Every structure is written in C-alpha cells, then in structure tokens.
C-alpha cells in the first residue's frame, strides 16, 4: 500500500514463471505447528520476506533488534528480503508458497489465500504465540482484529497501526465556499462546488487501484457495518443488495461530479500526493503513514497551515460510529510452521518485546497500547491530534476490500470501478458484471 514501484514485477514474473515450472503439486507442510518446539537454540540466519519500505521504520527498528540479538547469539542474522510494491510482493509470496519455499517469516494480509495456508497448518497460531510470550494483552484490540480471519483466528503479528483520514485544504474549501461534508452523500455537491472554483476536488492515486477501492467500502460500512463485505465475499450477499447499490450509485455520482483529478487512473502515488501538498487539490484520502509528509513544517509554507483532516462521515442512520473507520494495522507478519524452532521462537520473543518502544520512538503508532508515540521535531499540531485519535477508536473496523475479496473478484472490481467513475459503464452494468464475477469466483475460495 506504499509508494508503488512496479519495476520488479516484470523481472520477478520471469523468475517466478521459471520457479513455477519446478513447483510440485499439492505442497504440504512438514511443520508440527507447536508454539513451543523442543531443543536448544542454535543460532543461524533466518529470513523475513516482507513488503515494507526499505528505509521505513519497521525495517530500521528490526535491523537494530536483530543486531542486538546477534550480539548475544553469535552466528544469528536476520535476512530481510523486501519487495515494497505490494502486487509484486504478493506474486512472489504466493509463488514461494506454491513451491513450499516460504522462509521463517513472511508478510501477508488476512486474505483468503493466507487462510488456506493457515488451514493447511503452514502458519503458527499467533494468538497462542503472543499469549505464551505474555504480550497478547499489550496489543491494541483493533490492531489484532485487523489481522484476524473471519473465524476469529489470528495468524499474523501486526507491526504498525494506522488511521485513514480525509486530509483537506481549509483555504481551498473557503475559496469554493464549501464546508467539511457532514455525510458521504454530501461529497458530490462538495466536488461540484470545488470544480466550479477551478480546484481539483480529490487527489487520488488511481494507478494503484486500492485507493479507489477504499471508496466502495465506505457507504456499505456506514449503512450496514462490517458484515456486508463479510457476506459479500462469500457470495451470500450481492452487489445488487441495498448497501452495494448505495456504494455503486455514490461512486457513479462522484464520477459525474468530477471528484477526482483528470486522468486519475494513470496518476501514481507521488503525483497524487503532490497535487494535494502543492495546494492544487482540496482533499486527499490517505493514512497516518504519511503523517511525516502532511503534518510537518517541511510542507510548502503556502499550504502547511491550511491542512487539516476529517474522518469518514456518518449520518443519522449509520450502523457504525464516527470513531469507526479504516484503521489498519498494515500487512502482518506470519510465522512459517515448517521452520519454527527454538531459535525463531526466542528471537520473536526478544523482538516483539522490544519493538513497541523502539517504533514509537520513531514517531510511528505502535500496534501495542503500552508505549507513547514520540512526536517528532518539526511536526505540526496535526501530528499530535492524529496520534491521540488512535486511542479513541470504536470497536468496528472498516476493512479494505482488497484484503477481503477473492483475488479474481478483487482484480475485476478494481478494473470496473475505474470504468464506473470515468463514466464508461453504468451502475447497472457494473452491478451485473460484478455479481457474475463474484458468483463465479467466490465459491472457489469460500466453500
């Protein structure tokens, strides 16, 4: 979900295709799945296949922790293999899973594919693991819940905690004579007014597709709560149901009101952000991982003091509360049961105990609630406001749909959403296409 770099995709594709040729069918786990493996701790190199920025807080902190652990256990090292571009990473991880070559630690969202791996006993039960370390209760419930599968089981450790806001430019709102939308239904009117004033209403990274997919999750979350997507993905609910129709018609209206920048589907992550930070676009929907870019005195002085944010609007009939919105704990880390031994167990205990304090010191929100985030020098007051808000979240989570739907339906949804918002398809055509796709593919993953 971070800055897109598709560069690795092509090379990886060739390599993965070759690797696939050597894959054996029906790979199975040889791990016992026990969280307390017997034996001595024998230092060696362990690997973590991850999808996080190479210079980001998680990798920096984990490198430091690994160095500390290696000092006490000569011969140990942590090999971090990162592919920040998420689609490329997923392809790499799924191919390695198919070849039964997953390393000791690997990143994954709580996707249907990951659930299959868990059911095959190829991942360690993280709830049990954290409880055995005495750390389970230190985690924010929302951070753990984000990582859970629908049956409540937990197989991934969160390393982040984020909140997603609508950042907006107060001066541009004032220029267009609009105020913060009270409900989601107010968005089209807001866009029309901003367009009339010559302002791009909303900056969006359309190239990576997940930012637009966030928008289809919003109306159903407010209308029906988190249950709609949970039943939709299994095929028990349909896009033609009321919450789905509300979302589809709303997105069509956003398109008609020209809410997003011209040619948004080919605009990348940094260009979209630049539209907002340069004062050209009025709204930008992004998470707190961008706090250091949006709530800092390094921001363009002409924009800096005009930046504020609002959370996902509600209305009188909302099924979810104002303090419930998208608050992900990022991609989680799974532990391979095949290679889980006393060393991996001991290192994880060492790492997860020290990690919260160190990550909080970098200015990031910890997935645990036992530490206080350090507000970095040069941060604007907005930074502290966003950090404080993380302690007052509700219990219901707005899950990003790209982590929920089966991959084929998800890919088609992302494609069709662009066409819907661009006005190339009608809501009725969109609904029909998506219901057909869902009916064809959901049973493969959820039956």
């Amino acid at each position, binding site marked *: 979900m971070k800055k897109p770099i598709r560069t690795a995709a092509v090379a990886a594709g060739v390599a993965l295709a070759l690797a696939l040729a050597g894959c054996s069918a029906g790979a199975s786990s040889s791990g016992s799945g026990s969280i307390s493996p017997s034996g001595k701790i024998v230092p060696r190199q362990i690997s973590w296949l991850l999808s996080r920025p190479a210079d980001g807080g998680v990798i920096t902190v984990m490198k430091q922790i690994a160095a500390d652990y290696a000092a006490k256990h000569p011969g140990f090292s942590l090999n971090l293999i990162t592919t920040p571009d998420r689609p490329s990473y997923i392809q790499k991880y799924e191919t390695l899973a198919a070849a039964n070559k997953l390393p000791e630690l690997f990143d994954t969202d709580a996707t249907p594919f990951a659930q299959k791996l868990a059911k095959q006993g190829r991942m360690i039960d993280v709830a049990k693991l954290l409880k055995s370390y005495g750390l389970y209760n230190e985690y924010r419930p929302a951070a753990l819940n984000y990582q859970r599968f629908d049956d409540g089981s937990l197989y991934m450790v969160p390393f982040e905690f984020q909140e997603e806001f609508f950042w907006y430019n107060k001066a541009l709102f004032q220029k267009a004579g609009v105020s913060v939308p009270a409900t989601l239904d107010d968005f089209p009117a807001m866009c029309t007014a901003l367009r009339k004033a010559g302002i791009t209403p909303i900056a969006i990274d359309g190239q990576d597709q997940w930012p637009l997919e966030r928008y289809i999750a919003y109306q159903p979350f407010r209308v029906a709560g988190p249950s709609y997507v949970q039943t939709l993905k299994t095929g028990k609910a349909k896009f033609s149901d009321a919450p789905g129709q509300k979302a589809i018609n709303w997105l069509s209206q956003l398109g008609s009101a020209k809410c997003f920048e011209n*040619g948004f589907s080919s605009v990348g992550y940094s260009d979209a952000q630049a539209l907002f930070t340069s004062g050209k676009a009025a709204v930008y929907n992004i998470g707190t991982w961008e706090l250091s870019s949006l709530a800092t005195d390094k921001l363009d002085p002409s924009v800096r003091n005009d930046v504020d944010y609002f959370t996902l609007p509600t209305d009188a009939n909302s099924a979810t509360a104002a303090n419930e919105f998208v608050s992900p704990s990022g991609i989680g880390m799974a532990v391979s049961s095949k290679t889980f031994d006393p060393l991996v167990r001991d290192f994880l205990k060492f790492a997860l105990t020290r990690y919260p304090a160190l990550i909080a010191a970098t200015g990031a929100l910890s997935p645990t609630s036992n530490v206080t985030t350090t507000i970095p020098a040069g941060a604007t007051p907005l930074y502290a406001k966003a950090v404080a808000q993380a302690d007052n979240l509700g219990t219901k989570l707005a899950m990003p749909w790209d982590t929920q739907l089966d991959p084929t339906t998800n890919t088609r949804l992302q494609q069709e959403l662009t066409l819907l918002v661009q006005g190339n398809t009608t809501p009725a055509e969109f609904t029909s296409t998506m219901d057909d796709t869902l009916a064809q593919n959901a049973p493969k993953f959820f039956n």
Partner: protein
Amino acid sequence: MLPNRSRLSVLVFLVPPLLLYGVAVLLPIIQSLVLSFFSWDGISAMQFVGVQNYVHMLTGDSVFWHSFLNALGYLVICLVLQLGGALVVASLLTSFRRGREVVKTLYLLPAVISTVAIAFLFQRIYSIDPVGLINQILAWLGLGGLERPWLSDIHTVLAAVSIPEGWRFTGLYMLIIYAALLAVPQELEEAARLDGASRWRIFTQIRFPYIRPVWTTTTIVAATYSLRGFDIPYLLTNGGPGQSSELLTTYMYKTAFTSTDYGYASTISVFIVVECLVAVGLILLMLRRKADA
C-alpha cells in the same frame, strides 16, 4: 550423405543446443499443456478438469476475448510502426550521403534503454495533470480541444501503450532492413533508372523483391515479439482502465500470479503459443503467395 566424421561433428554441435532448447522452451510448453487440464491454486491438490478450462476460455470468458482483440490491435500498431517506420527510415538512409551513423545511432537508442525507463518516460509524455509533452504541444498549437489523459481514455489507451513498443524497436528493424537494402545491386537500379523507372517503381519492382527474404524474417520476429508483448503495457497501465489495454499476456500473468489460478493461466499460455504459430504460418503463406504472384 555425410561421412561418419562429419555426421559426428554435426551431432556434437547440434545436440547440446537442441537439448537446451528442449529444456528451456519445449518442456515448459508441455508442462503448461498438462497443467491446462487441471485446476490448481498452487497450494491445494491439483484437480483434473479435462477441457473445462478451454471451454470456459473460449465460451465463457469475456475478458479473454477482449484481451485477444486488444492483442491483435497491439500487433497491428506495433507492426506498422516497427516495419513501416523501419522501411521508410532505412530507404531514406540509403539516399543520405552524410550523417548516416548518427541517424542509425539515434534510431537504435530506444532499443537499449531499459523498459522501465521507457514506461516512466511515456507516462510523463502522456500525462495531463501535470501536463505532459503531447498535451503541451497540442495546447501550443491551439489544439487544446484534443488534450486528453491518453492513458486513462479507453479510446486511446491501446494505441498509447502500443506506440512506445513500436518506437522502441523501429531502430533495430531499420538496421536489419538497411543492411538488406545495401545488398541490392546498384547496377540493377541504375539500369531501371536509365529506362525511366520512377523511384516508387524501383522500390516496388527491384528493391522490395530483393529484400523479401529479410522482410519475411523481420516480419515474423516482429509479429511474434508483439504477440508476446507484456512489459510496457503492464508497467504503463496494468491493462487498464478496465480491460482497455489488457493483452493476453498481461491477463495470463494476472490469472497466474494474482488470481493463483495456475491451471487456467496455463490454458491461456497454450493459446498464446498456438496464436504465435498460426501468425507465423499466415505470414509465411501470405509472403510466399505474393512472391509467387
């Protein structure tokens, strides 16, 4: 009949590359063919489904047909740019007295630039916000009405992703055709010129028939390369918006590595192999008929 020693020499030289070809090319194709009769997500047991994948691909998958038509459009645009452009430039080069090397180098340059750099370059060229080169030029020319997001417009995106691929290899094919044109006997052209033949007639009656074997090979190489085109469309638009620039190759890649439906992806890959073979057969047939005519 070769003497024994020569036969051994031929075997020694031919068998290793044939083995390598078999392992690197034929084996994966056979593996794909086998896998195309299965349903397999990579982590569960493989399920034999017979020809179900083929039936679904040919009768129930609208994205497949959309991608197939896009691939044909992509092929036509690439061939026109690569072969047409190469022929024009190579013909002009033969009449240059100075600066040939500079022109050749300039035209060949895109072939050595990395694909990713080309994708980024064209992303900027096509952009509307911030305004890119094409839209800027249109504005300067007073053709502001034609400005558009070239990669987001479903009517222009296929051409927009095909052009960089065509542009990229024009220089390479130009070099091949230029080399062939240099081999055309000058005395033939001179004789025709003395007989009053026009430049067009010299080209169609002397030059082109003379380079036809090279032209055939170049067409086959360019066609098969374009049918397997993947990187630039994938990097520029990832097949979008919608399926407007989805090619069979990008669709196959997504089916395998995003949808983890390796069986169905193999079915598409078998189709791509057949499609390439049919294309080569058709090209050979057409050019032979013309040569015989």
